[in-house]
Each structure stands twice: as structure tokens, then as C-alpha cells.
């Protein structure tokens, strides 16, 4: 190893990461040395510019062959590119919300930190999406987690925020420990942290004792990572954290962090555990033999999320349970493991990104104005601001999965995926349909508030430019992908070639 060999790697592949890291570092230094009187929103705009630049550089990389640096500790394949695009778009929209977020309750001094912690969290998520090595995956996960813990507790004088940060840290620590324990077994069995070498080593495992231990490892990794997804059995933190964290952070956790969770889950599960044969037979791999367990957790997640959401009065708690339910839907696609799984999950996360960020943008507007988060503040929104009401209606319809919106297409894809495999997952699909119907109650409950309840007062709502852009982009994308999903699928088809290079 020398300098020449180091420089021979194609470091250009990491351009998006370098851009985000550079932006975060410059922001950190600027925030320290800019005079106090300069409005820190400038820093947010700078961060946004960094994210946009990263998206552009990623688009330039789309045509690149699959490449890797340094024993695949960094690996840019079509899977990584596709999901990194989601992460960056989500983070960009969240950044728009963050710029307009009015700091309060002890956060005033930390405006600058607020912005660059988003960027470091994003950097962690991006590293998670493009790495073929357990060590890098884990450090990416930690970077994302630690940044989010701080973001959740950044309103220092708000007890709810403190509580949310505390719960997030403790739950996160436990789940990380469990994941790491599972990973350590995988490493111990195979003697490598490189995912492909692990897969190669596992191909030769025929001792049932070893398969048993790998089964334990599988369980622990899955349970630990379910924390990031906010799915059962690690969903309990979500409502409290979502409620206490500042609204842009809540949006970030529900969109970017969740996407990153699915990325790392798919990455580890599909490279490591599809290689492992069951009982020495090569006809069936370990992951497929254990579909039912994942299916069970998916079902439990959907039921818990949707049923408890019915009883919520706080809009952010309601959206927390709704996001748990959505994690359950995506897990259905994961447990079905059809050959359209990648597409289905990607599209669902895309749709979810836009509808959820859009909804949170409107929630932020209203809660910042009213000071509380009770659902009743949506009453009469239609009278006060018809445009906002219509936008919120679009997002809610999409979250509920009504035809004409992106959420509908995403759900249909998951249905088809779960039914096309044999044996088809009828039970999961029926749970999904039933819980979707349940979800109509609370989504339409908000809609009734907006359209049919009289408003308490008729004060107009002033929309800041950043939030307006976020709402418009999200609403447009939700409708566009609802009517013309072929745009997204065509994009997937032409650029990512069915993710064939995922295992190669």
C-alpha cells in the first residue's frame, strides 16, 4: 500500500459524500466565526446548496459502472445510487423546513449547529446506503443516530424535547447493542466484515449448529435494526420522540432515517442471509426460509401503528403511529421477497417521502402559529387558507392510499409483489387491506376537521418561502407519481437495470 495505489482508486465515486462532508465542515467553521448579528438562515441556505450540489453530482454518477474503493468499504452500485437519491431529496426538503423553523425554547443559540447536524446525519445515512462492509455500515449508522439524538433534544428548555432525546438515546443504545451482537456472530462465523466475503464463506456452511447460531444473529440484527425503521418490536420510542423533537427533525426521522434503516436492512439481509443454505440444501436459502418471521413482525407493526393512531389527539403523535404503520407496509414488501421487491420498496419510500414531508410542512406551519399540537387546530383550515387545506388533503389521501396519488401506486405495488410469489402471502395482504381501512378513520378525521369544522378564528396563515417550496414540490410529486408512476419506474428501469449488480 502506498500513495500511488491510494490515488488509483476512483475517489470521484464519493463526490456526493465529499460535498456533504465539506458543506458540513464549512458550516461548522462559518457558524463559529460569523458575527452574531448575521441571520443564521444563510447557513441553512448554504447547507441546502450543498445538498443540491450532491444531488447533481450523484446524477452525473448515475451512468458510472458499479465501482468500489478500498475493499468495498465504499461501494457505489445501482442500489446505493437509487436510495441515495431518495435520502438526498428527503434531506433537501427537510432542510427547507428547517430554514423556516422558528427557534424557540433554548434553541436560539444553536441555529448553525441545527443545520450542520442535519448534514452529518445525512452523511451517515449516505454511507449506510453505499457500503459493502459491516464496519462502514455500522459507523454510518452511528453517525446518523448520534446526530439525530442531538437534534431531537436541541430545544433545551422544553421538557418534552429533553424527554424525547433521552428516550431516543437509551432505546438507540440498546438497539445498537443488539445489532452489534448479531453482527459479531456473523463476523465470528466467517472471519470477515466484507459482505461479499461473508456471503462466500456462508455458502459452504452445512453444519446445522452453525446455521442455528447464524439464525440467532439474523434475529438480533433484524430486531436491532427495527429501531431505525420504528417497526415492532422497537417502535415504542417513536411517538414520544416524534412529539418532543422539533418538527423538521420529526420529518427527518420519519423520512430520511427510516429510508436509511430500510437500506441497511436490505443490504445486510440480502447479501449475507441469502447466501446461507438451510440444512445443507441449496434449494432454499436461509432468508427465504424465515420469511414468516419477518411477515409476522410486519403484520404486528401494521396493526399496532394503525390501531393506536386512532386514539391520538396530538397531530405529531398521530403521524408517529402512522409512520410505524407505513414501516409495516414496507416490511410486507420485504417479507414477500418478490423480484419486484427493490422497485416496490423504492417507489413506496419515494411516495412516502413526498407525502410525509409535505404533511409535516403544513403541521409545522400550524403548530408554530398555534403553539400546540392538538388536532383541533386543523379545524376550519379550509376557510382560513384553502390552498393549504387542499395540499394537506392531497397528502392525507396519499397516505391513506386513495387512487390518483402516489401512495396508492406504492401500495398496489406491494400488494402485487406479495401476491405474485408462491406461496402467496394472503394473510399479510388481508392484514394490510384491513389496517389500511382502519387508517382511513384517522386520516379522514383530520380531513373532516379541515373542511367541515368551523374555525376558532379567521386569522390568515402566512407561509414562509421555504415551506411553500417544500409543500408545492411535495404536492406536485405526490400527484405526478400518482397519475404517471411510469415516470419513476422508467427512471428506475433505465438507470438501475433492475438492481442486478446488488450481489455481483
Amino acid at each position: 500500500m502506498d500513495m500511488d495505489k491510494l490515488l488509483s482508486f476512483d475517489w470521484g465515486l464519493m463526490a456526493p459524500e465529499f460535498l456533504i462532508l465539506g458543506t458540513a465542515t464549512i458550516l461548522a467553521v462559518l457558524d463559529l466565526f460569523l458575527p452574531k448579528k448575521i441571520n443564521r438562515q444563510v447557513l441553512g441556505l448554504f447547507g441546502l446548496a450543498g445538498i443540491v450540489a450532491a444531488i447533481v453530482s450523484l446524477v452525473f454518477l448515475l451512468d458510472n459502472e458499479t465501482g468500489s474503493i478500498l475493499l468495498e468499504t465504499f461501494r457505489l452500485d445501482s442500489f446505493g445510487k437509487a436510495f441515495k437519491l431518495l435520502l438526498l431529496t428527503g434531506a433537501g426538503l427537510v432542510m427547507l423546513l428547517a430554514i423556516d423553523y422558528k427557534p424557540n425554547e433554548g434553541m436560539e443559540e444553536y441555529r448553525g449547529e441545527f443545520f450542520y447536524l442535519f448534514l452529518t446525519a445525512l452523511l451517515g445515512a449516505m454511507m449506510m446506503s453505499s457500503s459493502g462492509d459491516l464496519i462502514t455500515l455500522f459507523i454510518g449508522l452511528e453517525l446518523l443516530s448520534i446526530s439525530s439524538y442531538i437534534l431531537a433534544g436541541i430545544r433545551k428548555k422544553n421538557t418534552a424535547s429533553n424527554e424525547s432525546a433521552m428516550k431516543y438515546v437509551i432505546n438507540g443504545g440498546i438497539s445498537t447493542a443488539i445489532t452489534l451482537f448479531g453482527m459479531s456472530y456473523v463476523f465470528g462465523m466467517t472471519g470477515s466484515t466484507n459482505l461479499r466475503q461473508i456471503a462466500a464463506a456462508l455458502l459452504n456452511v452445512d453444519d446445522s449448529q452453525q446455521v442455528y447460531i447464524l439464525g440467532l444473529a439474523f434475529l438480533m440484527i433484524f430486531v436491532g435494526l427495527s429501531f431505525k425503521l420504528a417497526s415492532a418490536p422497537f417502535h415504542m420510542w417513536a411517538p414520544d420522540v416524534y412529539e418532543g423533537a422539533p418538527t423538521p427533525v420529526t420529518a427527518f426521522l420519519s423520512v430520511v432515517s427510516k429510508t436509511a434503516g430500510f437500506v441497511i436492512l436490505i443490504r445486510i439481509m440480502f447479501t449475507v442471509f441469502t447466501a446461507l443454505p438451510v440444512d445443507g440444501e441449496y434449494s432454499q436459502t436461509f432468508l427465504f426460509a424465515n420469511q414468516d418471521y419477518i411477515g409476522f413482525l410486519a403484520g404486528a407493526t401494521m396493526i399496532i401503528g394503525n390501531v393506536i393512531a386512532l386514539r391520538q389527539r396530538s397531530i405529531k403523535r398521530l403521524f408517529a403511529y402512522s409512520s410505524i404503520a407505513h414501516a409495516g407496509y414496507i416490511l410486507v414488501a420485504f417479507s414477500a421477497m418478490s423480484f419486484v421487491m427493490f422497485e416496490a420498496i423504492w417507489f413506496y419510500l419515494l411516495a412516502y417521502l413526498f407525502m410525509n414531508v409535505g404533511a409535516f410542512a403544513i403541521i409545522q406551519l400550524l403548530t408554530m402559529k398555534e403553539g400546540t399540537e392538538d388536532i383541533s387546530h386543523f379545524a376550519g383550515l379550509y376557510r382560513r387558507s384553502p390552498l393549504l387545506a387542499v395540499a394537506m388533503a392531497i397528502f392525507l389521501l396519499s397516505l391513506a392510499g386513495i387512487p390518483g396519488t402516489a401512495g396508492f401506486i406504492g401500495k398496489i405495488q406491494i400488494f402485487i409483489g406479495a401476491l405474485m410469489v408462491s406461496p402467496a402471502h394472503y394473510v399479510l395482504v388481508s392484514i394490510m387491506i384491513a389496517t389500511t381501512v382502519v387508517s382511513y378513520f384517522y386520516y379522514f378525521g383530520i380531513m373532516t376537521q379541515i373542511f367541515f369544522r368551523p374555525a376558532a378564528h379567521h386569522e390568515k396563515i402566512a407561509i414562509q418561502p421555504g415551506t411553500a417550496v417544500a409543500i408545492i414540490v411535495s404536492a406536485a410529486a405526490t400527484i405526478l407519481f400518482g397519475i404517471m408512476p411510469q415516470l419513476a419506474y422508467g427512471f428506475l428501469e433505465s438507470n438501475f437495470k433492475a438492481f442486478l449488480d446488488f450481489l455481483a
Partner: protein
Amino acid sequence: MELLNLYQNNYLIVFVFLCLGVLLPVVALFFGKLLRPYKPLESKYTTYESGIEPFHDSRVQFNVRYYIFALMFVIFDVETVFLYPWAVAYEKLGIFALVEMLIFVVMLLIGLIYAWKKKVLKWI
């Protein structure tokens, strides 16, 4: 190569020292208890405050300022841990290792400047 058991046997000395380290205070305290006179008195249990009547617990709540020092100590401790194998392997690594470590240290330097600018390094 060194033999594995030879290597492990070297740790016997560490073990002996560990035992001595544990035994020394235990034995000293035990003999102290044996030898000293035992005459408990109410006033012996009160806190010594230079002759003034003590009025509350001797232990007080620390300032939160100390805690930040402890936290920063941990973080720079971890940094030192990374420096150690770097220094040992430096001869075999070449100039790029210097660049790597420079980047690493600069990142933490930003952290240090941050702490300095936020005035948490100031001792009241």
C-alpha cells in the same frame, strides 16, 4: 514467532501485580481494623468544618461545568487511542498515513475550537 502460551504466560506477572494491588489495601484496612481502638461517639461522626457547627451534608452537587470537561476528556481519549496504532505502524505505512491522521486531527481540532468559542473551556 513467539509462542502463544509463552506470550500468555507473560501476563502472569500482570496477574500477580493485580493480586498485589487488590491485596494491599484490603490487608491494610483489615489490620487497621484489628489494631485500632474502637470507641464510637456521636460527635465523631459529624463532618469536620474547622470548628464551626456543620449544618448540612459534606458532599455538594457539582457544577455542570465539570461534566463537559469529563465528556471532552472521553472524546479526546478515544482520539488518543486511534493515534497509538498509527504511531506504531507509521514506519510501514508511508506518507499517506500522515495525511489521513492530519484530516482526523483537523476534524477534532474544529471540535476543540468549537468548545473554545462556546466558552466552555473557560474556568469561571
